[in-house]
């Protein structure tokens, strides 16, 4: 065949080869079909471990009693025992190492999440003790008069 046909052909072949070479180095080795099929299961396997490596922040209230025995005991006796400590105090992470202490939120909004009266007869909300935030001691923090851990006290 003639040179002027071959030369561009070689260039094209070299270009394609380059693409394959780059692809070989750029695409991680663990990329492939790991799931059901190509449509849903074509991915980098390491991505799963990336997600698993995220640190847990909400520990749950099982361990709090070790050091805050009084608070946990109070809390367990009252109607608020269903509420996780961390819902009101924020995620514990590695407390008491880091952070050394957890925030205390005395905002009325914290309690109004459940106790602001809403006239919704078909909702479970109607079964919670309700107040009208504009009439029930407006301006004063709820915890001035109510114990947040056991409001029956």
């Amino acid at each position, binding site marked *: 065949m003639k040179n002027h046909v071959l030369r561009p052909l070689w260039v094209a072949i070299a270009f394609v080869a380059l693409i394959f070479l780059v692809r070989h180095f750029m695409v991680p080795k663990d990329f492939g079909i790991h799931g059901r099929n190509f449509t849903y299961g074509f*991915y980098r396997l390491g991505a799963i471990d990336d997600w698993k490596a995220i640190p*847990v922040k909400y520990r749950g209230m099982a361990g709090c009693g070790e050091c805050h025995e009084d608070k946990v005991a109070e809390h367990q006796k009252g109607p608020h025992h269903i509420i996780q400590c961390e819902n009101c105090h924020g*995620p514990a992470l590695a407390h008491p190492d880091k952070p050394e202490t957890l925030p205390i939120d005395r905002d009325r909004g914290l309690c109004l*999440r459940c106790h602001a009266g809403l006239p919704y007869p*078909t909702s479970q909300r109607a079964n919670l003790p309700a107040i009208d935030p504009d009439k029930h001691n407006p301006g004063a923090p709820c915890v001035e008069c109510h114990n947040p851990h056991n409001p029956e006290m």
Partner: protein
Amino acid sequence: MSCSRRDLLKKAMCGAVAASLPLTMFRFLSPAQAQAAVAGSGKVRWGFLVDTRKCVGCGFCVKACKMENEVPYDAPVTRTWVERYVVTRDGKTHIDSPLGGRDGFVSQKVGEETIPPEEITKAFFVPKLCNQCDNPACVQVCPVGATFQTNDGVVLIDRTWCIGCGYCIMACPYGVRFFHPIYKVAEKCTFCYHRISKGMVTACVQACPFGARRIGNLKDPNDPVTRAIMTERVAVLKDEYGTKPQVFYIGLDSNVR
């Protein structure tokens, strides 16, 4: 070069057959791979059960989700949210979800509207999150293989691989995907994959004081969540899209969209 008609036809036939064989034909699958391709391997398929009758709209689930999963707290994006539905006598449905319900529902105002209590015929709260569909439309549209379904049924995003094109955000019929303002990639609920893979429940399930949210293994017939889904009357959102959502709802209303 000489070539008889018979030779030409023979070679053309062989060529056509060879061209129609995909290269994957020549890959050897291990029995485990073959089984995975047919049935979805493993003994776990995560599913979720929401009991809308128990939800009071406190929003602790949204708060916990945002903190646990490092979703920017004050940005108007969230992986899970709670909607309020107020249906009035005139047949209208009033819906809102201030900040996704992060700070709860403390006002009788729905959006800007004040609705007189005597007008209300029914009102309720509906928590929403990623449905971890069996046929996820969001995964189908990804052009680079950055989102996928794990063998236990959870749809995840590869943050190092996502190019941020936003196709998946448009494809999700439930609107659960959004653009992460910090990582600049698509973002969605992962069923707290870092927690469930350690034997814990998701942050939202743990945070819910009323048991309105539960997570379980749908492949285990003795799992209490699986039992509840099998024995109670449950519904899913937007069944007609054929995505086979795996978040089931008890007490779902026809007004919920």
